[in-house]
């Protein structure tokens, strides 16, 4: 089975700082890592490859530095990795991101299954997986917590739903996004890390992907961030003192006053 895993490089720490002079994200000098939820997609892709004697290709969009995360993915066991990089992609929203990924997947050849993480820890939209599926014209299942059966023309997956879980059969090719419950990611092997170091990681730009720069990046995205700000914090916590009995009495009183209960 030909599996494609889409990953995102994100700040390694989610405690972020804003440059007080410019009011923009102070992202320079911040350590970056593979988006943690994507590691479950990567692990599942590698497991599928091992069961079906297939191939795992990892894609990401980002600057030259994102090459590190792709090599890390090879260290885990991915076979190939492609960096989608072009100044024109900068500031892409979820629509433009899925547009670029869809073009790259079509260019990379025949595929059976695309795996994405549930959402990124920075943007937190969870939209790229389903948007990518629609852009590719293939089916999609969200929040998959188990792959029950891998067939030639379809797969059976368990997904989290409103009432609990649903067992769904999806025709291939298709896209799924996965949740943490699906597996426990392995640790990269020493051999894997050696392979990763030497691996060739091609870079595809907008022209090679046949992408009109006007429809991607901040200029081409349907949505635009016009302002970022810190949420207002209600001030310091009020610590309730005394013995447990008195603490509980104070709490119940406070919650009543605020009509929280």
């Amino acid at each position: 089975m030909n599996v494609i895993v889409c990953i995102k490089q994100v700040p390694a720490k989610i405690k972020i700082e804003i440059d007080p002079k410019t009011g923009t994200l102070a992202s320079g000098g911040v350590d970056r890592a593979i988006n943690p939820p994507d590691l479950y997609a990567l692990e599942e892709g590698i497991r599928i490859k091992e069961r079906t004697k297939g191939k795992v290709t990892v894609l990401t969009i980002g600057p030259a530095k994102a090459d590190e995360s792709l090599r890390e993915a090879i260290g885990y066991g991915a076979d190939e990795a492609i960096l989608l990089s072009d100044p024109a992609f900068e500031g892409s929203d979820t629509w433009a991101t899925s547009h670029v990924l869809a073009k790259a997947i079509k260019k990379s050849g025949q595929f059976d299954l695309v795996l994405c993480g549930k959402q990124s820890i920075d943007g937190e939209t969870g939209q790229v997986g389903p948007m990518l599926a629609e852009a590719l014209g293939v089916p999609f299942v969200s929040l998959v917590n188990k792959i029950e059966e891998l067939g030639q023309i379809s797969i059976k997956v368990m997904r989290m739903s409103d009432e609990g879980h649903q067992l769904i059969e999806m025709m291939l090719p298709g896209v799924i996004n996965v949740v943490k419950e699906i597996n426990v990611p392995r640790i990269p092997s020493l051999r894997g890390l050696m392979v990763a170091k030497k691996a060739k990681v091609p870079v595809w730009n907008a022209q090679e992907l046949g992408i009109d720069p006007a429809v991607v990046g901040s200029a081409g995205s349907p949505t635009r961030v016009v302002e970022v700000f810190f949420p207002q914090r209600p001030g310091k916590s009020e610590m309730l003192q005394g013995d447990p009995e008195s603490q509980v009495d104070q709490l119940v009183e406070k919650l009543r006053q605020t009509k929280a209960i």
Partner: protein
Amino acid sequence: MTADGLGDIWVVAEQRDGHTKAASYALIGKARKLADESQSRVAAVCLSQGVEDAGQLAAFGADKVYLLDGPAPDRWNDDVYVKELVDLARRDKPGVILATSGSVASSVIPRLAVALDTGVAANCISLDYDAQNRMLVQTRPAFGGSLMANVVFPDKRPQIATVRPHAFKKGEPNSSRQGEMIRVDFDRRSVTAKTKLLNVVKDLTEKVRLDEAEIVVCGGRGLGKAENFGIVAELAEVLGAALGTSRPPVDDGWIPYAHQVGQTGKTVSPKLYIACGVAGAPQHLAGMQTSEIIVAINEDPKAPIFEVATYGMVGDLFKIVPLLTKKLREARG
């Protein structure tokens, strides 16, 4: 479509067992306010068959109620819903489409957006009308709630946003308000569904849905072992709250993953969040720090959970939690 007005505001109204969810009613109320400010109309779009409270949707503010002839809830199929919504949106051209964050929003809404060649502002907590530019300004958290972003659609329409449950308060219905009921016939044979629902497994442990609950009681590593979840479960029951947890109890197999709140679990934003024995790792705070009132109970006064807490109690949770349960139970008689 051009960006010369807000246009009709659609709210995807979700039902369970024939009744519209509270979050959908709240969203219709918000849409009503936006429509009054912008001289637009509100339409509720019901996807499921057999909606028993369609009249109520008008009472909460819908000028129109679309009743789509979708499959029965137990035959749920995203492919059919996407196709129905796309066809209807192409025909009646709404300016705005709103839906509640959740499992529909995780699949149907983004696919609808791509099919209509527009974007999505996901998991918003606030929506405002910008009269000067005649567009919506969507406010959404990012980076685990530590940053807010205002998002607009400069020219693409419809503007599509998903909104977190509890972002807006459910208003009071006005029973004199009437709405136009529009049945939409849909030729289901025109859809080649590429997914098929084979089975539904109901979760019996999750009595109250975590992502929809007004109150969440969360038990963390401080509980020590699986058996001790009973004391937080009792508190949850008295409050009619959902039961949440942090990552360590899930990893240790004390409680199913469906209960996990945080970066790799669910994001919740209830009116009241009671954290019992939760240290407050950044990954956990990312999933709950936008809650309205946060109560933290922990024996370690330096636990980071106290940094986001509204009310903090340093002490033994095994004494405090049962006492709280007892007092609340007595108060309820």
